[in-house]
């Protein structure tokens, strides 16, 4: 028992030592948290998010930081699961006292983290997740997003599909927060525009073999197959669809963040002709985007992608802090509202006051030879929809398929 008791004492002492350490902090440094997926289905997105943040911080620090504070980034891994995401968010906020938290990738985990940032009053930017709850029922004062959410994406995409691709659509989605939300909003938007949903199906996050669902899709005989998947799920799904000959049989369309530009060359053949919504492409001739991409390439040696959002998020936050002349979360949050910046990756962008959503133009791309080639641009004001803070975005929705006789 003696050994055990001394072990208890030792552990306690060690814990105390660790506790005492962070009390000594350097003056004039402000910390920001980068919480992203470094393991799991969305690993790639986390990696690029870190790069985007890094680039913004380097630029800001070169100009003397923010409010005279040098910015320091703390990166943590959320393992693409809510439990570690919450634990790490708490660590960043409570232990490291970060003034800004950027993250996370998976919508499920983002919503869990939103509870933490709300409770501990921390500015929270998200530039990847797109479930519709985040600017409606889950919304809180300190949360900002510059990722078009499902509703915006659906509004933009449904119109193009009905006009140019076909009216009979099958919706296949990932059965978790993001995919359900995308599928739902898309169905609503499509039916409003006179399209017909001939079938819906959901496959769990991280499904290995999608072929059990293929029979039902073929039976429904759609013209267009709408896919709400992301990350490694998309890669696997496209590989399998292609091997079953379904990529040539149907016209394919998918959500923002379906696949990163970096993944496209390796899967160029199955993806040929795929219509995808994306707010960034290295192959977009837009001047601001090209300038941003050149900067990104110079720094990291690869093309930029969806991570452009994380870069903008840090700049928005820094501008808001300067405007508020304080790191006080309430004042910084208020300074964000209605703010516009001229020099984002796509030029001028503004934050809408009501639901803290960045009003952003969206671009439709078609994949040709492994490259996202722009085919249409949808003004952000046309797709954003009315603010619905506090209202249930899925009220009255049903997955039921309306039969057209």
């Amino acid at each position: 028992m003696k050994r055990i008791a001394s072990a208890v004492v030792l552990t306690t002492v060690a814990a105390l030592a660790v506790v005492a350490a962070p009390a000594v902090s350097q003056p004039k440094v402000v910390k920001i948290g980068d919480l992203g997926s470094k393991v799991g289905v969305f690993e790639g997105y986390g990696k690029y998010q870190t790069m985007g943040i890094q680039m913004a911080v380097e630029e800001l620090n070169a100009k003397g930081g923010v409010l005279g504070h040098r910015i320091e980034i703390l990166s943590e891994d959320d393992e693409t699961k809510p439990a570690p995401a919450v634990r790490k968010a708490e660590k960043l906020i409570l232990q490291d006292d970060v003034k800004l938290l950027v993250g996370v990738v998976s919508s499920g985990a983002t919503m869990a983290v939103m509870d933490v940032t709300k409770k501990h009053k921390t500015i929270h930017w998200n530039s990847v997740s797109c479930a519709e709850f985040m600017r409606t029922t889950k919304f809180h004062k300190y949360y900002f997003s510059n990722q078009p959410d499902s509703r915006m994406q659906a509004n933009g995409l449904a119109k193009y599909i009905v006009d140019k691709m076909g009216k009979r659509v099958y919706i296949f989605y990932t059965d978790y927060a993001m995919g359900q939300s995308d599928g739902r909003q898309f169905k609503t938007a499509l039916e409003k525009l006179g399209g017909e949903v001939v079938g819906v199906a959901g496959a769990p996050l991280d499904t290995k073999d999608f072929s059990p669902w293929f029979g039902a899709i073929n039976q429904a005989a759609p013209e267009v197959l709408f896919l709400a998947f992301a990350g490694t799920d998309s890669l696997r799904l496209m590989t399998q669809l292609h091997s079953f000959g379904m990529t040539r049989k149907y016209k394919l369309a998918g959500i923002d963040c379906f696949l990163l530009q970096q993944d496209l060359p390796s899967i160029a053949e199955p993806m040929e002709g795929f219509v995808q919504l994306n707010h960034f492409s290295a192959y977009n001739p837009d001047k601001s985007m090209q300038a941003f991409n050149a900067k990104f390439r110079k720094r990291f040696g690869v093309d930029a992608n969806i991570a452009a959002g994380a870069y903008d998020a840090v700049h928005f936050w820094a501008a808001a802090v300067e405007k508020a002349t304080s790191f006080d979360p309430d004042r910084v949050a208020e300074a964000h509202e209605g703010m516009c910046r001229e020099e984002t990756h796509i030029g001028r962008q503004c934050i809408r006051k009501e639901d803290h959503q960045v009003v952003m133009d969206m671009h439709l791309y078609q994949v040709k030879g492994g490259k996202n080639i722009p085919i249409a641009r949808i003004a952000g004001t046309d797709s954003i929809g009315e603010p619905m803070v506090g209202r249930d975005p899925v009220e009255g929705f049903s997955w039921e398929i309306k039969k057209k006789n």
Partner: protein
Amino acid sequence: MIFGLLGVMNFAHGELYMLGAYAGIAVIGVTHSFWVALIAAPLLVAALGAVTEVATLRPLYRREPLYGLILTFGLALVFREGARQIWGGDMRRVLPPVTGSTPLLGMTYPNYRLFLLGASSALLLLIWLFFTRTRAGVLVRAAVQDAEMLDGLGVNVPRLFTLTFAGSAALAALAGLLLAPVFTVYPQMGVEMILLAFIVVILGGMGSMGGSVVAALVIGTAQSLFSLWMNPQRVAIAIFAIMIVVLIVRPRGFFGREGVLE
């Protein structure tokens, strides 16, 4: 699916399966041939398996088999993270060596999946022949039954075990590479597979090879039959339900014998 058949309850088996796929990608990178990789990758993984067996598992054979289970859980962690460090966590694709698709029973099946069907049947047959018709195969079966007796008969049992382990590692690697074009390759790929393998082994009856094959067939058939009239999400639950029923009715699985590995 051909693995986990050898009565070695090995948590790291899924990771050997994963390493087989990565080794295959490495070999394809050098030789540009899927078929060369199909031979080379299992050999590489078998070598790793043999080294691991000698270094970690051999001292444990005389102890409780549960230690083996816990130890291989640790090994699995090491292999998985090791692979992530070496190859990164990104998903890799392996192009199928057989392309095109064939219409069959109203559905279009990719030729590669049909090839897999043929290849796995052939492999099963080979394994069955090995265990029943060759001296080495009979020795392995004997060793699972009664290692001490075999030792008394002058057979080098530790070496036999090492070879068995290496052989099962090679099979896992082969499966990993064969399935890579379908499921793609990433460090966590072994985690789901190992559970499926355990289920097959338990259902079939521990220590019974034929049982494992039957169980694998039953699960596969049930899976595809159910997905005809059920949401595939429910199928996963239904499969487990069947399994529990089987275990309640026949606690030792389809062909399990009294007392093996208990």
